[in-house]
């Protein structure tokens, strides 16, 4: 490893682009992998010296050595703190990833989730010793049911996609209960990838519903495709174009008329929480991403939680465990028996994402009914403000009428400029902003989906819009290289994703490194 020669790795190539040309990156230095820091014999954890005897495990113990380095605590802290500074985060600036709802994550929620009574609680302790935890689940369920206007909720799904699966499995069980083995699920082309993937996982064939010019479900096409073999219609509302489906009630009616169920993807519930109850729209099942609408941190990819609200018709098929009010307080029905007889079964071990339940509940209680309504209003207001400020220069995919929580643009305005949606996005990085969601939804060419969320101040929105406009001006000015070469100021220049896929290197190995 030449990496360790002078200081932490300096970057001749890049520093060469600095005048005067001196190595060094100041506060931001490269950082090797832990496997390159030595420590093959060390450990950063102290254990009591006590006699141990593993004779009884003769023949069952590892024959190959565990090649895992251990670092002292100071080295470990430094390694991960250095790495952390190479990340963008919602705590650093507006994070306009459409469909992801990157909003402020309150530290109060983190603190409460770490109370010993929650974090140090075993999922299989006697029920009498976990009444507080069950009470949290019950309260969360009450809030979710009230906010959605639905009679039941299955809390256990571990993320949105898992919630989709939960919903479709309930639908499947409901059909089978009446001996009706339907095989098809309808979903718009604009649907998030998890929708078709989930439908397939649940054993269904997926057929696409067309979309109208205005970005809505094409009712005629839906009606045409509905039939006795259709088990469910999956529609995201507000949809992935950032629009509310105006015909949603009709969609529900047609769906029900065909004997199918209406699954609503609720990932965008943030836009309507407190102002619209999906239950009033005819929805049969909808998942809620607690890590979006209710702000449990994304954590660089997870964890999340995807509770699913269910209509009275689907409720009996909800997965185990069921939380019930016993005479001794709260109780759990953990097997498909008794009241839960109809349950389609268990989706995972234990009771779901308790850590997320506490955070989401703290978030809801902090906002209250009034605050949550304000959340939806400010989220929609911020998105429309951004849309209004940028529409002069960028081309909105659906110019007429308001959008909901996110503003969708296509790349018409970039045509012939030599700058792609990707190039433009990478240039945003240099100005200190995370790019918007790109090339999704698929129904729009070179899509740029901007979701500011309600936790952005007007000042930050203006800085963001000013930046985009300044960049757009540069595009017009033909300053192509500024985009095709971007980012220039990130910890790394643009990464070669093709190489990564062509020659996958998915783990460090002494051999490869040597």
């Amino acid at each position, binding site marked *: 490893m030449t990496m360790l020669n002078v200081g932490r790795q300096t970057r001749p190539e890049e520093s060469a682009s600095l005048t005067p040309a001196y190595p060094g990156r100041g506060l931001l230095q490269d950082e090797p992998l832990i496997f390159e820091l030595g420590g093959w014999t060390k450990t950063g954890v102290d254990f009591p010296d006590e006699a141990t005897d593993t004779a009884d495990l003769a023949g069952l113990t590892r024959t190959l050595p565990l090649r895992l*380095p251990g670092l002292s*605590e100071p080295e470990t802290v430094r390694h991960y703190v250095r790495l952390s500074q190479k990340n963008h985060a919602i705590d650093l600036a507006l994070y306009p990833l459409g469909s992801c709802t990157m909003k402020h994550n309150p530290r109060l929620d983190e603190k409460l989730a770490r109370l010993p009574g929650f974090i140090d609680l075993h999922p299989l302790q006697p029920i009498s010793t976990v009444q507080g935890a069950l009470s949290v689940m019950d309260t969360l369920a009450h809030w979710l049911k009230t906010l959605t206007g639905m009679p039941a909720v299955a809390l256990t799904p571990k993320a949105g996609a898992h919630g989709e699966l939960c919903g479709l499995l309930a639908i499947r069980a409901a059909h089978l209960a009446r001996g009706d083995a339907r095989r098809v699920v309808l979903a718009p082309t604009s649907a998030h990838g998890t929708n078709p993937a989930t439908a397939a996982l649940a054993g269904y064939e997926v057929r696409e519903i067309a979309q109208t010019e205005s970005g809505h479900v094409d009712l005629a096409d839906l009606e045409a495709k509905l039939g006795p073999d259709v088990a469910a219609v999956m529609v995201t509302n507000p949809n992935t174009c950032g629009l509310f489906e105006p015909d949603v009630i009709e969609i529900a009616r047609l769906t029900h008329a065909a004997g199918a169920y209406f699954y609503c993807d609720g990932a965008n519930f943030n836009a309507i929480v407190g102002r619209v109850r999906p239950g009033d729209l005819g929805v049969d099942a909808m998942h809620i991403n607690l890590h979006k609408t209710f702000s449990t*941190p994304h954590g660089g990819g997870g964890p999340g939680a995807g509770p699913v609200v269910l209509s009275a018709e689907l409720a009996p098929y909800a997965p185990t465990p069921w939380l019930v009010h016993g005479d001794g307080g709260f109780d759990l029905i953990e097997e498909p028996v008794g009241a839960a007889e109809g349950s389609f079964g268990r989706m995972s071990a234990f009771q779901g994402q*308790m850590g997320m339940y506490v955070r989401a509940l703290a978030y809801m209680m902090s906002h209250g009914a009034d605050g949550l309504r304000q959340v939806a209003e400010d989220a929609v207001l911020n998105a429309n403000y951004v849309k209004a400020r940028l529409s002069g220069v960028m081309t909105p995919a659906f110019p007429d009428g308001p959008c909901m929580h996110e503003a969708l643009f296509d790349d018409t305005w970039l045509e012939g400029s030599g700058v792609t949606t990707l190039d433009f996005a990478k240039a945003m990085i240099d100005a200190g902003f995370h790019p918007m969601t790109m090339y999704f939804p698929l129904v729009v060419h070179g899509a740029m989906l901007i979701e500011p969320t309600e936790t952005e101040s007007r000042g930050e929105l203006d800085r963001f819009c000013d930046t985009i406009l300044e960049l757009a001006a540069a595009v017009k000015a033909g300053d192509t290289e500024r985009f095709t070469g971007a980012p220039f100021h990130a910890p790394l*220049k643009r990464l070669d994703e093709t190489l990564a896929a062509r020659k996958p290197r998915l783990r460090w190995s002494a051999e490869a490194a040597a």
Partner: protein
Amino acid sequence: MRYLPLTPDDRAAMLAVIGAATIDDLFIDVPASARLAKPVDLPPHAGELEVERALSALAAKNRAAGTGPFFCGAGAYRHHVPATVDHLIQRSEFLTSYTPYQPEIAQGTLQTLFEFQTQVAELLGLPVANASMYDGSTGCAEAVLMASRATKRSGAVLSGGLHPHYAEAAHTLAVAAGVETHRLSAAIDDEAAVIAAIGPDTACVVVQTPNVFGTVTDVTPIAQAAHAAGALMIVVTTETVSLGLLKSPGEMGADIAVAEGQSIGNGLNFGGPYVGLFACTEKLTRQIPGRLCGQTVDAEGRRGFVLTLSTREQHIRRDKATSNICTNSGLCALAFTIHMSLLGGTGLRTLAQINHARTLSLKKALAAVPGVEVLTPRLFNEFAIRLPTDAAAVVEALARKDIIAGVPYARLDPDAGLDDVLLVCATETTTAGDIAAFAAALDANLNGEIAA
């Protein structure tokens, strides 16, 4: 409201820029019948102090594991997590970032994922590991589907030692996907039965070690039988700490290894969030579910990391994806990686040895209680005992004495007819005092005074 930066003036000015008279104008697409005129029937906003009071009161209604003698295992384990781990994962840059879709400003997350994948592959003894699953149980279910895709067979043999929740979760997913699970009846030790159950349509054999009864097994013979029959071997581990001492799945011939990673870096959390470890052979790489982080270079040739092989994933492949998973357990994986970086192979081994030692003392102490029969032949840090009476009743009685005695097996598998079996566990957090108190209380309960 403290989380909402807009002032009334801001809102008015912004509506003007938009050209809308009121906020309602932005919700016109909502059918009139569905527009709520006023807030729903829930309490109004509350200050931090009030929210903290309310939730602290609920937390206080639970008996935290650490506040007294505690012996539950069975899929979730109480270990000490260094304060450093929890501090580091709360860094804004880790906690509040999204899935690393923009690698140039996500190297912090990506490099730690690459470290995670390497650590998991090393632990499970297989060449390829993904960037995490929701937890061990969902990982196990995905492994079954993956095996049937890879073998184009539709049968899955589930050992009677597999954690019942895992078996049920796998069954739920399998049914929908048209895979038939053959779950053997609960057994402390069922190598022979598993081998016997393998047939021509068997896509995979799923065996857990240490299993739900704590039994440690060298599954090599099972793996050989499976391979001989053209089936894949899936090895499940719920206690990752055991891998510091025991043979890795890879060493024993596993094609796919799945583990619950909660023990390293993560709290009990009443069951979640946890982190699923998932590894497989080179050959199966393109069948693996979930995200993969890979090494590459940037425009100037510097090493960097990106999410890769995403053609397997839902956002590209949609209904042809290897899984529907999107959000995973990123932050729990980070906690796992940081804790593992502190432990290292040396520390993990010592930790495993101490867990085993404390468990042997627990075994000794309980075996000495008249009426208690130890059922587990070979154990790591948990084992099953048979009581002369209903295990659940004993657990309830001891809980009233502030001793959390373990998990009645019947709670996981009511129909197995094992109501008298209790699953107990000891870790580095279990003290000699805890063990003595447990043994004494159990003795009193079984042989002494009637449980209050």
